[in-house]
């Protein structure tokens, strides 16, 4: 197998890695906010459920969670899991990352001084307006460095999809390396992850800079 065949075979995996990455972000960034807000719910039961959920997501390996999401439906409900591989992956990634994002959001929300809420209340802003116009923009600025960290971790964590034999970059690299007795696929995969994260770093730096206009 020539280098270029290797590369083009792996290009398909890169797209799949990209799909996991973007779908996870699209799902977990907003879900994390909902989880963070529910964690401050006035209902004890809701708060309890959310805190157990976050504990489990952070306290068990993501690899194990992926296996549970994929095989669980079969063992628990006898469900046919033929087309369930990719959805299970996304569910697993989104729920796991949402838990981490929720904790980041919570930290950010709690760091906003109570005076900001009071100023908004006296001016007559509704609760939703206060959150969307006053609190959230400030939270975003504070948490951006932590979000960057998580996004970079996510780029590398996509490789855990190999647990479910999903044909993304890392799985392909392992397979091609074994069949071709070549080290090259791992080099390609390594360069791919590094470049992807380099792009993430640049993009996140831009976002952080765009919020630099105030302190």
């Amino acid at each position, binding site marked *: 197998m020539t280098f270029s065949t290797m590369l083009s075979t792996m290009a398909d995996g890169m797209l799949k890695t990209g799909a996991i990455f973007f779908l996870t972000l699209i799902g977990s960034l907003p879900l994390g906010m909902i989880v963070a807000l529910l964690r401050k719910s006035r209902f004890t039961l809701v708060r309890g459920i959310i805190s157990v959920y976050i504990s489990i997501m952070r306290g068990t390996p993501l690899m194990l969670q992926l296996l549970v999401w994929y095989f669980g439906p079969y063992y628990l409900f006898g469900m046919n899991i033929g087309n369930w591989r990719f959805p299970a992956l996304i569910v697993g990634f989104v729920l796991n990352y949402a838990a981490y994002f929720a904790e980041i959001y919570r930290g950010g929300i709690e760091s906003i001084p109570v005076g900001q809420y009071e*100023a908004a209340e*006296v001016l*007559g802003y509704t609760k939703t*307006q206060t959150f969307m116009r006053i609190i959230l923009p*400030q939270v975003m600025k504070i948490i951006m460095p932590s979000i960057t960290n998580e996004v970079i971790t996510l780029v590398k964590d996509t490789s855990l999809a190999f647990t479910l034999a999903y044909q993304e970059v890392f799985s392909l690299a392992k397979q091609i390396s074994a069949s071709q007795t070549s080290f090259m696929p791992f080099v390609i995969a390594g360069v791919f992850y590094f470049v992807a994260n380099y792009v993430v770093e640049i993009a996140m730096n831009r976002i952080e800079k765009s919020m630099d206009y*105030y302190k």
Partner: protein
Amino acid sequence: MIIEMNNIEKHFEGLEVLKDISFGVDSGEVVSIIGPSGSGKSTLLRCATFLEKIDGGEIIYMGQKAAHTDEQGNAVYVPHHEMGKFRGYCGLVFQQFNLFPHYSILKNITDAPIHVQGRSRDEAEATAMELLGKMGIADKADAYPYQLSGGQQQRVAIARALAMKPEILFFDEPTSALDPELTGEVLKVIRQLAEEKMTMVVVTHEMPFAKAVSNRVLFMDGGVIVEQGDPREVFENPKEERTRQFLRVFEQ
């Protein structure tokens, strides 16, 4: 009367902070509230501006009841959708300014008039620029709060409150967070508003200011109004021993 607060009770976890307090403010009146820390001055302001809920008594703005006590002795507020009207009657200037750091000075002042009161952007901006001019900081419209001194930030906060066109403006120790050389510029603005007959209630430790600017002084201690009256009377001829003691500390 702009505001009447009758028999106000407020406690935090069993601790009585306001004990049966009654007071009212007439249109154009400037009232100063003085007293030691923990006397309930700030809590009274926070109840008047609906940041805290009273536990008993009634709050009346412009002759309309915002809160009263029912037969069971519980404080009842008007329904949520009517609160907006009452919030619109009052403004509050905080000790810590509490400007919105992510908004420019202009936006700090125009955002609520536009998005809460539904005024047009043009109108809101014209009002804001006029107020900034009055505060002597028209050149700061495009700056952000962190670029301003404490005294300038507090003047922006006053402009922000005035932009809502409140009937009455409350000040909660407006100069306590400022360096001594910056208190003057804020007091000057409040004095100017007093001359324009803006109705104001100022919680303050600036005794000379309270004496010079207010029509009436309230001395609070231990959750009650110990003494009130003409500033000259209260400061020069206090009737109550507690007032005397308190003022003596300030004279030293």
